[in-house]
């Protein structure tokens, strides 16, 4: 009951946002710069939300998300540029292959915990990057030409699908199991939860959406190069999630919007941008290690005014 009450306002809001922006773009009232920023925001939100599923919900500290972004970007570019198939197929192929890559990476490395998992995922992402660097079919270090196909419609549609799938996953029985893995892996194992299964599922799902974001990312620029998918890109995505609050989906969304806008305006001063980024990261971790929103969601703030009925739905 409660969920369906929440569902329709979100759908209406989403449709409204989409229609307003689309009308503005097609009327020519919004110039290239702003529409591009909006597309970039949508891509970054998809990335942030997909990593939020892995780190925030399942508690698996993966810091190699750019690797899956790279898989999605390159595979989708091959589909459109070499095989001349439609863009929608490219998005799906990018997502599916990234999910497969997520399975291949996840099954062995999710046996590791904490720091070791972080380093292993970082290493895997770097291996993926080096593999693309050495394949001449995709242009090696020089990169690959890609046509500009990402439009506001594609970006927004993918964004909405991502959020709906991840919110539903989080609220489902699987999501609750994943959260129990985050809270205490040994205890949830003892309660009969197949922790490996949930970790791998969350990892593959996160990789799938990273691949979708990769497809959009590749077709939003005119060229993709392996150097775009290094450590820094992974850390960028990680920063969205951490700043928003580990375990808060709306936090990830908000910080992705905020940081994309800030970094778009600081584009001309790359050093200043990185210094601000790192300072924000250090200060948030020192003074608010839970992130800006903690594990709260935006909707929780509205609930405060209502009479509380039983426990909250999203985390404590």
């Amino acid at each position: 009951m409660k969920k369906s009450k929440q569902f329709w306002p979100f759908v209406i809001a989403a449709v409204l946002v989409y229609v307003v922006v689309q009308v503005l773009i097609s009327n020519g009232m919004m110039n290239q710069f702003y529409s591009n920023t909006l597309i970039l925001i949508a891509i970054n939100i998809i990335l942030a939300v997909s990593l939020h599923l892995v780190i925030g919900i399942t508690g698996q500290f993966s810091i190699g998300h750019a690797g899956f972004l790279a898989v999605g970007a390159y595979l989708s570019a091959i589909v459109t540029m070499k095989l001349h198939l439609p863009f929608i197929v490219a998005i799906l192929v990018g997502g599916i292959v990234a999910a497969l890559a997520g399975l291949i990476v996840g099954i062995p490395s999710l046996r590791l915990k904490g720091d070791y998992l972080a380093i292993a995922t970082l290493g895997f992402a770097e291996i993926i990057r080096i593999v693309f660097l050495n394949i001449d079919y995709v242009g090696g270090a020089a990169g690959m030409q890609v046509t500009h196909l990402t439009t506001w419609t594609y970006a927004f549609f993918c964004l909405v699908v991502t959020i709906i799938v991840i919110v539903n996953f989080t609220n489902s029985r699987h999501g609750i199991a994943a959260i129990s893995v985050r809270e205490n892996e040994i205890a949830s194992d003892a309660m009969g939860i197949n922790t490996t299964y949930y970790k791998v599922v969350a990892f593959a799902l996160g990789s799938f959406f990273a691949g979708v974001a990769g497809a959009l990312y590749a077709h939003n620029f005119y060229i993709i190069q392996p150097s775009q998918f290094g450590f820094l890109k992974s850390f960028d995505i990680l920063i969205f999630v951490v700043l928003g609050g580990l375990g808060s989906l709306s936090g990830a969304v908000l910080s992705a919007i905020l940081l994309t806008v800030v970094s778009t305006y600081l584009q001309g001063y790359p050093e200043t941008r990185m210094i601000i980024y790192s300072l924000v990261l250090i200060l948030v971790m020192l003074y608010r290690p839970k992130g800006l929103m903690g594990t709260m969601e935006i909707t929780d703030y509205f609930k405060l005014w209502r009479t509380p009925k039983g426990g909250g739905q999203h985390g404590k």
Partner: protein
Amino acid sequence: MEWIQQLINGISLGSIYALIALGYTMVYGIIKLINFAHGDVFMVGSFIGFYSITVFGLGFFPALILSMAACALFGVIIERIAYKRLRNATRIAALITAIGVSLFIEYGVIYIRGAQPEAYPDVFSNRSFEFLGAHISIQSILILSVSVVLMILLQFIVHKTKTGKAMRAVSHDTEAAKLMGINVDNTISATFAIGSALAGAAGVIFGVYYTKIDPLMGVIPGVKAFVAAVLGGIGIIPGAMVGGLVLGVVETFVSALGFSLWRDAAAFVILILILIFRPSGIFGKNTREKV
């Protein structure tokens, strides 16, 4: 005798990795933190060495010692400002702070002096002599001997001095060490100081050997040194040395076999294999997690 030549190159590279890895392994052993900023301390050390040779006109050894001292201080400052508050925070918070500190140092240096690379001055004459048909430069010998001396010194500090004893105690059990009257904060600072001094020395040696330094040079050697530390068993000092040497030799041979573009991948493949099959490393003992 091509392979002897490659082996010597590999050992030189490996000894640089080993020096950085020692800092990682000591810090991890004592506060269980992957100090991502360690690679950047290495970079700062390299630049301090560079400026003390070119601007102040110091020789190699004074520059080395100055760089080590400055890096020791720098490491302690980083620890006091960024990591001390996070002693009891989650590991994820500490790791992310370390990433933040690392980015801050890199881009702080770029902000101050620009991103352009710098050519290290030639401090030794480029003489070499023949050994079993291989050309060994004076530089490699000197670099190798400096590394070996520093490692022996480290072993002496850790095993024969009071500070070393305190370090081992804190790393074994922080709470018990505190109860026995050991000043944990000072011991951790000393660990950071020693580890950072070694990274600074590695930075100067790296500059002399590879002749090109830039503000982002710490990233890849830093991660590889971490791989070396994991390879040998993290927290174990001889493990870091052996891991560094093995990694350096493997990398050099991968390049020598004509796969130079795959060189960086080799380190990560080793990392992942060791993490999957023997997470405790070559020298580590398997310990079961207690509930």
